[in-house]
């Protein structure tokens, strides 16, 4: 079958480079997304009024603005005020903003689900607020956020494809280029789709293992 041969000999090798770029985009975004998301969540729950306001504004803006528009702003818009980012950096930055905004919502919910007595007990022992947040609240909140954070990670896997729209040749971009060249849109995008599906499936399995590893008797 021509198509199978095409897939194996031409398509897959050509997609490999793009696949690696996709992995890079995801790997660079995810940790910062969680870190900044946690910081924003803590700011929203424990911060002073101005800090809370800023945190809420951050979340509202980056959740309500389409990611593609955000990428355009970072890649096409910033140069007009003197900041020139490479497509890859602009994409990662945009992804981090978006990812952290959603992550902060999950983490905020988890923080609020922790019984108040935990915070009180920490204070009663003489811990400063920051210490209580760092040693008592956050470890528990992050554990409880894992399902939500994994959910967001899956979204990240998928919207990493938008980097192509600012000229990053990641998986989808590589696919489009091959498809256009050989007029094999259906085969190409089905294979590309399958790769994303595999990434998502691997993630879900990995998440279950992670949850079990950090589980604490409750």
């Amino acid at each position, binding site marked *: 079958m021509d198509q199978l041969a095409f897939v194996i000999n031409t398509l897959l090798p050509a997609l490999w480079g793009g696949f690696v770029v996709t992995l890079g985009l995801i790997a660079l975004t995810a940790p910062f997304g969680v870190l900044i998301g946690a910081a924003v969540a803590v700011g929203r729950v424990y911060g002073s009024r101005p800090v809370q306001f800023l945190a809420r504004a951050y979340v509202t803006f980056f959740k309500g603005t389409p990611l593609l528009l955000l990428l355009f702003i970072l890649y096409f818009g910033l140069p007009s005020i003197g900041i020139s980012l490479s497509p890859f950096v602009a994409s990662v930055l945009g992804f981090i903003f978006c990812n952290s905004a959603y992550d902060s919502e999950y983490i905020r919910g988890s923080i609020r689900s922790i019984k108040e*007595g935990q915070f009180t007990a920490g204070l009663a022992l*003489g*811990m400063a607020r920051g210490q209580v947040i760092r040693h*008592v609240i956050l470890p528990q909140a992050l554990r409880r956020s894992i399902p939500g954070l994994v959910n967001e990670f899956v979204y990240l896997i998928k919207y990493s494809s938008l980097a192509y729209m600012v000229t990053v040749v990641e998986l989808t971009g590589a696919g489009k280029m091959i498809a256009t060249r050989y007029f094999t849109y259906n085969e190409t995008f089905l294979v590309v789709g399958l790769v994303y599906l595999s990434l998502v499936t691997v993630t879900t399995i990995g998440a279950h293992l992670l949850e079990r590893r950090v589980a604490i008797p409750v």
Partner: protein
Amino acid sequence: MTTDDTILRVEGLAKSFGTTEVLKEISFTVRKGETKVFIGPSGTGKSTLLRCINQLIIPDAGHVYLHGEEVTHAGARINHFRSKIGMVFQNFNLFDHMTAVRNVEIALMKVKGMKEDEAREKALFELRRVGMEDRADHYPAQLSGGQAQRVSIARALAMDPDVMLFDEPTSALDPELTGEVLEVIRGLARAGMTMLIVTHEMRFALSIADELLFMEHGTILERGAPGDLATSPTFERTRQFAGRFADL
């Protein structure tokens, strides 16, 4: 005026929540090794009183002095004072994500700056003191109520506090489990710990208190040694309350 063995002095504490006056002009002094027990109907401000002492609740008026130093309006030094005032909560409030020994050692490391092995040694010592050494690696969810409360006592003791505050330590426990906790508290009294206890356990209160304080509607209605209460003028109201429980 501070006598040498006055540990805690409370002067004119008052607190209102909205229009409700929960504490009205509460004053008393606690000497070293004394055990004061607060009894009275629920919701009369006893918990609020304890929390005003370590400023978990900020009182509207009044002063608290620990060893002559003012705790109220202490600003950033409040953490220092809190580390010298041990508190045990009705709902234990153990840190759910930490093992028993970690619960006890965390404040030693983060507040007192102890090194890990030093803290671990002290933590295990305190756990042994309350009889929980063999459960050191258990998580709170794996402990019974009485065990959890004992760990929380160890956690407070580990800080070597000048005074221990007990906020209804057995109210959340099944009846069979209260005994082990009360026994630990008795042991502390025998060892000379200065303590303020809020409790509903009348028999326990009578047996351990150096002074009983009966609170109602935010004021100390009457106070005295357990034996003296029998001959006091306002004895009727107190007896009404106490009589609902065991013997007097």
